[in-house]
Structure formats: C-alpha cells, structure tokens
C-alpha cells in the first residue's frame, strides 16, 4: 500500500531478484501537478486495478488505468477443459453473481448442442439468476455507501446476501462459486427447503431494501456526493460499449432480458428502471430499482413454477442418475463419455448473451467438434465499460473518483478474465 511508493511498480517477474525495500517516493511535482497512485492495493479499489491520477490539488486532471493484476487466462484455460468444467471458470469471473455466469454458459452450450430445456428448469434458472442479480447489486450499492463513508447500510443489506447464500447452498452446495446448473438443465430440483427460503426472502427483503433506501436515497449528504458526479451521456455510453445498469442509468433502456429473451424471460412482467444522465446517483437508483424488479420476477416465477422435469431429455449430454449408471449399460457408457468430455459437439460458432449483473455478458464459442471449445471468448461488460473511467472522473475530486469507481461496479475477476 502506501501506494505512492509503487509509483513505478517493480515490473520484473516475481522471483528472488526483486529490488529491496523501496521507501523513497518523495512528493514530486510536475508542473505543480501531483501524481497520486490509486491502487492496486488502495482500499477503495475493490479487487485490483491501478489508477495513476494526475492531481491538481484535489482535482483530477487526468488518469491512466492499469489493469491485468489478476489476469488468470480464462480463455486459454477454456481451450483445455471440457465444456462442463468451464462452468467452474465462469463462477470466478463475476464472482458477485456467479449463477448468472453459470447459466449463461450453459445456455450457450445448449444453443450449440441444440438442447431444449424444459420449462421448469428455465424458471428455476430465472429465479436463481435474479437472486444473483440482487446479490450483485447489493454488493455494488452497499459498497458505494461504504465508499461514501457509511458502513452500516452495507452491513444491513449484506445480511440479505448471506440469506441468498443460504439459498444457493440449498440449491448447489456452495456459497459464492456456485458451479450451479448443468448443461441441459439443473443438477437437482429446487428442494422444499430452498423454496421455503426463497419465499422467506421475498417477504423479508423488501423491508430491508426499504430501510436501506431510507438510509441513502434522500439523504442530502449522500445525494450531494453522487448527484451529477461521473455522469456520462447516452451517446458516449453507447460508444464506449456500456451495457447493463450503467447504460440504463444514462437513459437507454437496453436490457438483454427484454430484447433477446432467454430462459423464458418473456413470460414475466417487469419494468426496466432507467436514469437521466448516467451519473452516480442514477446508477445507484437504477440498481435499487432493478432489485425491486428482480423481486417481482422471482415472485412470478415461483408462483408459476411449472411441474415437470428439471433437465432436458438429452442422455448424450446430461449425466444419467447414479442408479441408472449401476443398472444400465447405456447409462454407464453415457456417463463415461460425458465425464471424459467426449460428447459429440457439433462444429459451429455461437454467440449468446445474458444480462449479467453488470450488463451484457456474452459468450462467443467456437467449437471444432472436439471435447473442448476451440475458442471461447467472454464479452465481459466490466472490461469494456471500465475504459470510460478517466473520462468520467476528469475534473472531479479524489472523493468523486472513488464513488464513481464503486458505482460502476468494476469487478476485478470480470475485468481481467
């Protein structure tokens, strides 16, 4: 930390030949501008990225971003893993809303393989994806509060995230990196406990969210901090490739769930919250509004949850039940083939997009018929819109830069892939 001492971060490969302790970072003034190094370990850079700010007093004159501090080579790994194992990679991309990534990936593969997923599985997916959206927005808005100096609201809504984790645990057995769902459906049906917990959440969450909104929405201290801070026009936002809540905050009601409905989103009634000028307050309010809409969707999906199987009738792609593996030779063969990754994937290329927590999360999959994707590219919304950050914080103060960063919800895992 003392990030200024990392003005020039040591660039060599980690090893034993690092320069020794480097404490000399005397305050340097170039044309009376201060260079302030925000990150990579600054408390407000959630995850890891660096912003080198040129400051004139408290005003930011220009900034330069460095990313890639947790580049993990997702796309390269994806070329070496069978389709079903890539789910575990998508978990770790936008880790605040893993189920959306999981489902998006499954739907991409299903599109490639031509599997029709039964309605029940689609509804279950919708429920889980909307839960994930809520938990994603919870983090973002809570952290925005933290960065504005109010820690408490964050902890109030974080408890609800903890409850959403409970639901995940009931559905898939993990909290954060869910590895949820399988190609062709879900790995298991919603258990009665899970349904009960979701229903409980539907009752409790509105109260908590109302409380959170009362703490922030109309508090002048907070509004002064965020209104007209980091605004971006719809035109610039589109040019920069913004999607998701950040684009909607600028007034463009682009939502993949409505434009290209997937997983039966067309069955549900919900609104698209939009803002006015794309500033931090708009982003905050749009995310809050989306949480309300997600609740609506979950309620509808849960009330109309159709009966039926929760996985597609595609034995060559979907693991047979364990009992079958014992008794049935065919099932055993399929089991082995699927686990070995030897499914007969067609040659082709697919682009599939879902509305992730941060916007259009796209999967561009090229299959050459082998056991692994020939090429898999993730369209990570964070990565694309984070480049607008210097433009957004130019001329503002350090404090603004920090709330803008948290309101953009840049997630390092998704940013660096």
């Amino acid at each position, binding site marked *: 930390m003392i990030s200024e001492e990392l003005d020039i971060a040591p660039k060599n490969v980690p090893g034993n030949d690092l320069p020794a302790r480097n404490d000399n970072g005397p*305050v340097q003034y170039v044309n009376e501008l201060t260079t302030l190094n925000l990150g990579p370990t600054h408390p407000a850079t959630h995850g890891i990225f660096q912003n080198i700010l040129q400051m004139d007093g408290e005003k930011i004159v220009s900034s330069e971003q460095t990313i890639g501090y947790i580049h993990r080579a997702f796309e390269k790994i994806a070329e070496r893993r069978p389709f079903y194992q890539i789910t575990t990679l998508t978990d770790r991309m936008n880790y605040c809303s893993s189920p959306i990534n999981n489902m998006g990936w499954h739907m991409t593969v299903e599109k490639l393989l031509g599997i029709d997923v039964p309605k029940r599985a689609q509804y279950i997916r919708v429920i889980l994806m909307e839960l994930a959206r809520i938990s994603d927005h919870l983090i973002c808005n809570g952290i925005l509060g933290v960065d504005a*100096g*109010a820690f408490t609201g964050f902890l109030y809504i974080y408890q609800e995230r903890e409850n959403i984790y409970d639901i995940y645990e009931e559905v898939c057995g993990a909290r954060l990196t869910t590895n949820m769902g399988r190609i062709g459906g879900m790995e298991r049906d919603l258990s009665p406990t899970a349904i009960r917990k979701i229903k409980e959440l539907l009752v409790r969450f509105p109260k908590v969210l109302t409380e959170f909104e009362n703490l922030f929405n*109309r508090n002048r201290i907070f509004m002064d901090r965020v209104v007209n801070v980091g605004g971006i026009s719809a035109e610039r936002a589109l040019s920069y490739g913004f999607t998701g809540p950040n684009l909607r905050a600028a007034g463009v009601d682009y939502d993949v769930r409505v434009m290209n409905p997937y997983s039966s989103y067309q069955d549900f009634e919900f609104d698209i919250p939009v803002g006015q000028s794309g500033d931090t307050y708009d982003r905050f309010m749009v995310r809050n509004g989306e949480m309300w809409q997600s609740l609506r969707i979950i309620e509808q999906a849960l009330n109309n949850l159709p009966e039926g199987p929760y996985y597609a009738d595609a034995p060559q792609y979907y693991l047979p039940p364990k009992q079958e593996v014992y008794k049935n030779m065919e099932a055993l063969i399929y089991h082995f083939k699927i686990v070995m990754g030897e499914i007969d994937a067609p040659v082709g290329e697919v682009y599939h997009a879902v509305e992730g927590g941060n916007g259009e999360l796209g999967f561009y999959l090229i299959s050459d018929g082998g056991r692994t994707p020939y090429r898999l590219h993730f369209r990570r919304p964070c990565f694309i819109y984070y480049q607008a950050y210097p433009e957004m914080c130019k001329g503002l*103060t350090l404090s603004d830069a920090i709330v803008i960063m948290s309101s953009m919800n840049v997630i390092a895992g998704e940013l660096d892939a």
Partner: protein
Amino acid sequence: MELPVLTVKGLIILAIFGITLLIATYSTYAERKVAAFLQDRLGPNRAGPWGLLQPIADAGKMFFKEDFIPSQASKWLFILGPCLAMLTALMSSAVIPFGDSVRFIWDKVNYEVAIQGIEINIGVLYIFGVVSLGVYGVMVGGWASNNKFSLLGAIRAASQNISYEIALGLSLITILMMTGSLSLRAIIDEQATFFEWNIFTQPLGFVIFLTCSFAECNRTPFDLPECETELVGGYHTEYSSMKLGFYLFSEYINMFVSSAFISCLYFGGFHYPFINEVNQALENSLGAVAGHNVATLIGVVVMFSKIFFFIFFFMWVRWTLPRFRYDQLMNLGWKTFIPLSILNVVLTGAGLLYNFKYATWLIAIVMIVMAVVSTARAPKPNIVPQRT
C-alpha cells in the same frame, strides 16, 4: 492557597486526568461495541468478559509493535506529531467543571474546593485556544510522513479545522452574550433551572456548535483527514505502533472533551431538573458538609451521563451518515454555518435588548415551516417502483 486546598485540588486534577485517560481508553472499546450493535454484530467479546480487556490488548500490542520511521520522513517532526496531538488533547480537559464543589473541614476551618482542574475566568477561550492548536499534531505528522495520502490528509485537516473554528466561535458567542462571562462555571450556573438550559434558548446555536465539534474532532461525517476509503489512513497512514495509538487516542480524548464542553454549554453541565430542591433536602438531612458533597456527587454523575450520551451520539452519527466531500464541507462551513451563526448572533442580540431569551427560535420556526411547506408542495417522488 493553603495546603489542604492544594492537596484536594491535586487529587481532583489527578482524578480528572485519570478519568480522561480511562474514558478515552474505553471509548475505543465503546466505539467498537456501539458500531457492532448498530450494525447487527456483536463486537469484541473474547478478550475478557464481554471483551472488556480489548483496549488493554490493543495497547499491549501497540507498545510492542515495531516502531517504524520511514527513511524519507523528517524524523523529529514524525515523532513530534503524535506528541502534539496527545498533548493538546490532554490539556483541554483542565478547565471543565465536572461538578459543583467539595466541602471539607480541616483544623476546624471550612474549605470548599471546586471540582475543576483550574478555575480561570477565560475558560471558554482556553479551550478554544487549545482546540485550535490540536490541528498541529495532525499537520506536522501528516507532513512529516512524506506520503502523499498523509499530506492530503494533513491539508484537509488544517483547512477544515480553521474553517469550522469560525462558526464554532460565532455560535458560542451567543452564549457568552447571554451569560456575560467567559468562565465555564458562570455559564453553567446561568443554566440552573431546566428551561434556561442553553439548548432551549439557543437551539440553532446548538446545532451549529454540535456540527462544528464533529468537524473539529475529525469525526464522520467530517472525517476527511483520515477517511479510509479515500486516503488509506490519511495523516496517520505511515504511523505504526504507539505513535498511531497516540493519534487514535487523542481523537477519543477530543471527543470526550467536546462532549463535556457541549454538556456544559448547552445542557447545564452538572445541573439537572429540581437540583435545588434535591440539594436542599440533602443538606437538611445530612448536614451542610456531607449533604453538599453528596449533592455534588450526584451532579458529577449527571454530568458524566450527559458526557456519555454525547460520546454515544458521536459514535451513533459516525456509523449512520456518509461523509462529505471536501468542497461540500467547505461550502457548508463558510456559506451555511457562518452566515447562520451571524444571524443567530444578531437575533440573540436583539432578543437581549428586549429581554426575550428565546429569540432564536424564530429562525428555527421559519426553517421548520419552510421545510414542511416545501415537502407538502413537492410532487410525490416516483422513486421506488414497488413490487406488485
């Protein structure tokens, strides 16, 4: 002064010093507990019963942590910073009257000693002076660290403290006008009856004073000099071990002193409703000496409960509100509080001319009416698309 008076005085001073330190120590614990409880958590509960030994553990750790001085820092100033912070913080509790007085008989002579470090007739100014020096610790430390975040923190602290001192002073002047004295004891004695507490005569002044003391103590929503999410640790980013401890400690002492000051100025200090009746009854039943001492003791307890409430209030606010931005802070100080407090002074002066103490309620009433009217007339905000 005679020897017995000196002895008792010495004891009182020692007690005040000790209590200041003790309260500051346990304020750190209280802060963690209060924060935890406001946030649906439990807070420290492993170190000792209910975590009561937590401050001691912290101190023990800090004393034996590596004392680190950055190589590029100016060494002496780096050490001087926390010393100054601690010194100025500790100096200010000297003039605060914590209670009425102790009576005792020595060698058949009646003595009466006030429960106050030193009685000077410019007590308010003394506190003011010491508080205005408090910023040096932060500035010197922040500058000496040779770290940009520290420097920014130091600069923010300096400008913030200077700006808010003005409004603080102006809001205080109304009280001085009404009392006609700079002595804290006189101010307290002025508020002997409940409805003459300055909170009732100076509501606006109280709000301004309270806000400014938040700013002077560098507490949220004015904690810009050290705000964690922006400046890492602000002026104390580079400090480790007990030097850091001194900084943190001085903040809590300042908070304690501010709370005491607020209680004295606006809440009648050690006075409470029906204090005269109680005192009379005690003196009648226990005798002049013992009864008076017991009455004083009750007063001290009342005083401390007021102080504790304000310390709690400081924490309560800290864990509720977001913080200001630097320019908003300045605007609030210069463009809102200073004009308001000048208006307050003028109104109080006019009120005094016509012997009407509650003149400043005028502003408060106007503000409340305006707020109500505007809220009623505002279009219903279309914010939350409620769930069907």
